[in-house]
């Protein structure tokens, strides 16, 4: 039975090879990520520009301030949304930039102004990048407190240097001197508006590319990011660098709009929190809403000025409203959750009201994509290297999870690892792929010793892996998850699409992972790994959570692809039907050691293996 399947696989592979020879070369095309709503910031800006002509001048000043707030908010939105870190030093960074700018530019000449901008924005970016590097070490609560310490440090040390801040009067910054209708305030607003529009467009362009998927993957699924070969520290540095850049520009604008940098209390710790509340209130998922919130934040105090409201009460109310707004999204979703039916299929699931609301929140259209004509791709890959693990041992707190295991997966070999839970199978996987440092032993890919190589680099070297619980970023779509990260060849996109079609998940390509069933997520992960042309693919429990028919389908696809492409396969699986179908070699692990290994029929004939399966006492 297995034999026929293999033959079938080979036949299909021949067909596809023929199709590729017919002259339909795979052409890389643009990554089709769902569109972001640029329209919102444009509307805001149009409103602003019309306000330019209608508003009284003191309100144009408020509008300029709103732009500065929005820019800081956008700067904080990046680490918050992509990395889930809460930096509490936005105000200090903006202040740093503002004062450095004013200090250098106070002479008034254009040259000095440019130098001031460069120094202000540059220092701000550098400090932020340092924060990004720190976030590799300290995360979560500790990162937040560390950023708070940076805020206090800058506030207490730098801002208390009178020479820098210019003392009580502040240091003047040259503003264009105009009178008449186009007075200084209006011109300043116009300039600030143009700067903001430029930057927003740039950020939007970046978000439209694959970069977004890489960022989100880095922050939301670090191990997933490793598994697609993303160098995480680079991503963090880029995100924080960009964040610092935006905040720095905002700081310069603060000084420019006011004519002098605002006094240090304006860049105090409370303001850091209020700035952070801007992206939080905007829901953290849409960068465009940041502008609305910023406008609200800056307009409210001005509107309420005549009522003499206590500034603490006012900022407290603003924060509270911001938090409520951001969290009410979830409440709405919960309400929808109670209303919804029980969808059976993914299409029904997608059609259900809840999913549509989810889609709206994610700015991503949810519809089953029409079947696409995917081009056949060249299946032949050069696989010549074997993955060899020698005497691998992993110890956790005194417990030997893996104890001196030898593994070899040659080109085109298919090996299965079975064993009880806790036998150390996944730990062995982690050691082979670099997710856990082995206590002893070496790992080689061909001639290359990859024992000390970090996980992402091993993936780039030609390993591919999936996880027991799929490591996919919830808020990204299937397609984004598949395409994120590094590709081995030029043809990632056509190949990925071809694979998605082959695995039967093309219809779900633009649906966020969040609403994709568990079993399908496994397929997404497998497509993600295979799209990168691995030389050795390691799959961890590929069929748990799949239906019977799905298991046989998956088996068929995997065998067919493997026969055509010739990668090596190492699979952990409990399901003996799948194991006997997919593997030719098999090893059984018990308590971190190899109980027995060999050809699949020999191993299955072993009485001890049977006992392991029935949960009986077996010792190595």
């Amino acid at each position, binding site marked *: 039975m297995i034999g026929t399947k293999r033959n079938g696989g080979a036949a299909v592979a021949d067909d596809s090879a023929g199709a590729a020879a017919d002259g339909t070369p795979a052409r890389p095309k643009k990554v089709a990520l769902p569109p972001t709503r640029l329209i919102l910031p444009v509307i805001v800006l149009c409103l602003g520009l019309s306000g330019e002509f209608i508003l009284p001048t003191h309100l144009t000043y408020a509008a300029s301030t709103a732009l500065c707030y929005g820019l800081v908010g956008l700067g904080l939105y990046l680490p918050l949304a992509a990395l889930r870190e809460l930096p509490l030093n936005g105000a200090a960074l903006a202040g740093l930039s503002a004062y450095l700018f004013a200090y250098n530019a106070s002479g008034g000449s254009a040259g000095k102004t440019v130098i001031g901008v460069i120094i202000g924005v540059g220092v701000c970016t550098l400090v932020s990048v340092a924060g990004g590097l720190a976030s590799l070490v300290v995360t979560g*609560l500790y990162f937040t407190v*560390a950023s708070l*310490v940076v805020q206090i*440090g800058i506030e207490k040390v730098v801002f*208390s240097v009178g020479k820098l801040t210019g003392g009580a009067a502040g240091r003047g910054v040259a503003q264009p001197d105009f009178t008449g209708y186009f007075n200084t305030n209006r011109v300043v607003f116009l300039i600030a508006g143009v700067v903001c529009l430029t930057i927003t467009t740039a950020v939007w362009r970046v978000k439209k590319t694959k970069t977004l998927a890489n960022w989100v993957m880095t922050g939301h699924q670090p191990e997933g990011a490793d598994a697609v070969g993303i160098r995480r520290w680079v991503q963090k540095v880029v995100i924080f660098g960009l964040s610092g850049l935006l905040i720095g520009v905002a700081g310069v604008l603060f000084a420019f709009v006011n004519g002098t940098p605002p006094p240090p209390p304006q860049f105090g*710790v409370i303001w850091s929190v209020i700035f952070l509340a801007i992206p939080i209130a905007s829901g953290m998922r849409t960068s465009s809403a940041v502008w609305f919130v910023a406008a609200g934040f800056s307009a409210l105090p001005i509107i309420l000025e005549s009522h003499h409201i206590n500034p603490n009460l006012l900022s407290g109310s603003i924060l509270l409203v911001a938090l409520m707004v951001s*969290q009410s999204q979830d409440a709405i979703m919960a309400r929808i959750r109670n209303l919804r039916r029980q969808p059976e299929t993914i299409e029904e699931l997608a059609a259900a009201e809840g999913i549509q609301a989810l889609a709206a929140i994610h700015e991503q259209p949810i519809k089953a994509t029409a079947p696409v004509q995917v081009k056949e791709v060249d299946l032949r890959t050069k696989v010549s290297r074997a993955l060899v693990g020698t005497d691998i041992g992993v110890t956790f707190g005194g417990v030997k999870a893996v104890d001196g295991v030898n593994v070899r997966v040659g080109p085109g070999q298919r090996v299965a690892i079975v064993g009880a839970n806790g036998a150390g199978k996944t730990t062995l996987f982690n050691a082979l792929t670099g997710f856990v440092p082995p206590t002893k032993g070496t790992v080689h890919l061909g001639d290359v010793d990859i024992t000390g190589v970090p996980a992402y680099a091993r993936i780039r070297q030609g390993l591919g892996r999936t996880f027991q619980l799929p490591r996919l970023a919830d808020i990204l779509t299937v397609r984004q998850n598949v395409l994120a990260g590094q590709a081995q060849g030029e043809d990632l996109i056509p190949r990925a699409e071809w694979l998605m079609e082959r695995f039967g998940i093309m219809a779900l390509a633009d649906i966020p992972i969040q609403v994709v069933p568990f079993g399908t997520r496994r397929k997404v992960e497998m497509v993600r790994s295979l799209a990168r042309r691995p030389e050795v693919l390691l799959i961890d429990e590929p069929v748990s959570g799949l239906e019977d028919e799905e298991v046989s389908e998956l088996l068929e696809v995997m065998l067919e692809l493997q026969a055509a492409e010739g990668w090596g396969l190492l699979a952990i699986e409990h399901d003996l039907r799948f194991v006997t179908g997919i593997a030719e070699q098999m090893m059984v692990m018990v308590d971190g050691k190899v109980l027995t290994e060999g050809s699949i029929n020999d191993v299955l004939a072993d009485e001890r293996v049977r006992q392991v399966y029935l949960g009986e006492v077996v010792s190595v």
Partner: protein
Amino acid sequence: MVIGVTAAVFESAVIIGIFTGTIYAMMALGIVASFRINRVVNLGIPGLAVFGATVYFEMSNVWGAPVLVALLGGVAVGALFGAILGLCNLKMTAWPRGFVMIFTLTASLFLFGWSDKILPPIQVSPASPFGDSGGFKVALTYVSNHQIGTFITCILVTLLMGFVVSKTRIGIYVRAIYDDGDSAATLGIPLGYFVVGVWAVAGALAALAGILVSPRVTLDPYLILFVTIWALAGSILGGLESFGIAFVGSILVGLSQGILGGGIIHLGPGLENLGAIAVVAIAVFYAGVKRRDLAHIQT
């Protein structure tokens, strides 16, 4: 840079540092208490402190109530608002912890605002519960009864809290909820009451801290806010979990400020905080890295 450090100058710098640290330690108690139950950094503490001190000021200086009654009044109000914050926390179990933290800050801002409305427009300093006069000289430094009283109170409360958490059955339940709320609930431990209760205690501690801190630094919300941030930095060394380490950490922060800013090393204006910030930054990094390793072992 070191200019003629005599033993007496050093001693006085250390003493100043210790008493500054005591102020931070007082604030740290409330932060640790509320974190100890549901892992939320309670930035409502400065608000509770200011409001508690405001009530104390109103009762003692304006209404003329006896100091002890005023103290109890302030602490009770602190506990009440702490409990309300705890109740709000229960409604926010689905929120990311960082958001809950920001929510607690809004509570602080509201309490600041209300205190502003109650207090006279000028800067005030309430009377010390330990008496405004009296004290003695240690080396070159005059130590007031208030400072000594605060120091002793702080140590006593730290010991008491440490004892309750580590030795009593209530402490076991509190730690169980902190480790794993769901499992604690399924064992029949009423999670909600504990969160509200512990936050009420945190509120009371914050109010007490405010009452003891404000006679020294005037009742200014922003001063108290900064005191809280130093306290937060001091207590993060113990992962916000340990009252004892929070106390020691806060004293260390105070000491570094006292020694580096108090006349021994002159770094110039504005830079006297540099040392303290460096100490705190190192502490935060150390704690963050240590915790990461711990988390790794546990999973």
